[in-house]
């Protein structure tokens, strides 16, 4: 029973991403670089986003953290590739709503990010999952604000 509970948090796909994170590294020529910290545990993470027009051509992340934060970042970067900035914001909103208990619409293409639904049963760990999209959203917003100014 206890192990089953833990398995809803640490799904195999999450552990896979944790063990072998996708898109881990830096992109020196990225237009967007966003950094942030989880104040609870001190984990630091950075995202590099390379744009082609208003589409995300490449995105990487760096930093160390727990299995949940690392897997979430790995899955998120995977899912963001090729998306427009608008769709990227939409994906982030969907993930945020999911953490607050809303079921994503069947049309939403979440890929492996779907496996993070189990984190909701572990309220203290939601911040670990949310760290990556919070940082990324801040970075996208700062970039767009700068562009508009």
């Amino acid at each position, binding site marked *: 029973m206890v192990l089953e*509970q833990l398995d809803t948090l640490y799904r195999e*796909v999450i552990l*896979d991403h944790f063990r072998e994170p996708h898109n881990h590294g830096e992109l020196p020529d990225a237009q967007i670089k966003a950094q942030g910290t989880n104040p609870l545990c001190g984990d630091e993470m950075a995202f590099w986003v390379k744009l082609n027009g208003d589409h995300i051509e490449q995105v990487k992340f760096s930093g160390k953290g727990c299995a949940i934060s690392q897997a979430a970042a790995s899955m998120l970067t995977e899912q963001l590739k090729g998306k427009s900035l608008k769709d990227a914001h939409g994906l982030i909103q969907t993930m945020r709503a999911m953490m607050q208990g809303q079921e994503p619409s069947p049309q939403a293409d979440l890929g492996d990010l779907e496996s993070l639904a189990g984190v909701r049963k572990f309220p203290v760990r939601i911040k670990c999952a949310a760290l990556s999209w919070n940082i990324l959203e801040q970075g996208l917003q700062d970039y767009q604000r700068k562009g508009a100014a």
Partner: protein
Amino acid sequence: MLDVQRIRQDFPILHRTVHDRRPLVYLDNAATTQKPRQVIEALVNYYSRYNANIHRGIHALAEEATAAYERTRVETGRFINAPSSRSVIFTRNATEAINVIAQAWGRANLQSGDEILLTEMEHHANLVPWQMVAKATGAKLAHVGISDDGVLKMDEYRQKLTSKTKVVGVTHMSNVLGTINPVEEISKLAHAKGALVVVDAAQSAPQLRLDVQAMGCDALAFSAHKMLGPTGVGVLYAKEELLEAMPPFLGGGEMIADVTLTDATWNELPWKFEAGTPNIADVVAFSEALAYLERIGLQAVRAHEQELLGYALERLQGLDDISLYGPKALDQRGGAVSFNLAGLHPHDVGTILDHEGIAIRAGHHCAKPLMRRLGVAATARASFYFYNTKEEVDCLVDGLRAVKAFFARPARAVRGS
């Protein structure tokens, strides 16, 4: 020798279970300790029998409440061997106690060119208040480093302690490393340069017999909730002459002698520093916590913790891929042990242990500069108190084996749900 099984009968919470009826193994005592029924009953008794506002009432309940509140002050003073209970101020917690000194004394006495000397192993509670005062006054911050095994570099302390140093802030016992700092020597050296010494005793007050006169410090702060007492009560001890010379921290009721529309004069010590209705119920119940510790004796508390810590360090060292932080010598440390398992984040370690019923702390422990010094983002920390047992240490070690096994499971080829 403590009769731990009998002692555990006094702590109702130690008999509950968590996550699918697992017995609770509570190893997060450096964060807060559990409360014996004597303390819990004292809270109920206060609210059931003599709840009243203190000092100003002229009825029976107010008299009883005032007497119980002030009696606790006397007992608290005695507990740390303060020369007078006028030196004992009740605050919300140790953090607020340090802020009283930093803000009230610091703003009135520090200026540009002065230095505030702290250490690399301080809790944020003994860093941030001084940073705020430094910004406000133009005083400079300096920090004494630690060795790789978490011992304060006393040579560096002697070097950095100069005639510019106006105050030295130091933890008596690190909440991360467990390191016990030589406060007596630190005070002597500081006083020779004319600097004040402010001691964060939040971790040491629950475990060591404190004698503020022998320690020689000018001020000392600790929290009731880390030593069997309720939350919401902190203690600031400071030398009377220091408190007399300091302006008040907060203004309001109770802390005044006289008030006109445009001016006020201050009440006597200690009430000058206790504006507004204090946390009467929790202070009164803290008295039972002190009585409990006196009954079993701080020497026995310390001896039991040393035994547990020694056992824990020995067993933990037997695990592969574990990094342990803090001094090797048992007599140089208190009952907290911080560690990391290679390749695993302490939050993941904490979550798995939690599901085994084991409560530890994982994170930066409000000591981010120390984490940076250790070269880690976070650590896991198990911290013991006198009601913990060797069997619970065994549970921790077994739990850590389970953590390693959990994350060592072969990754499945199948993806998604």
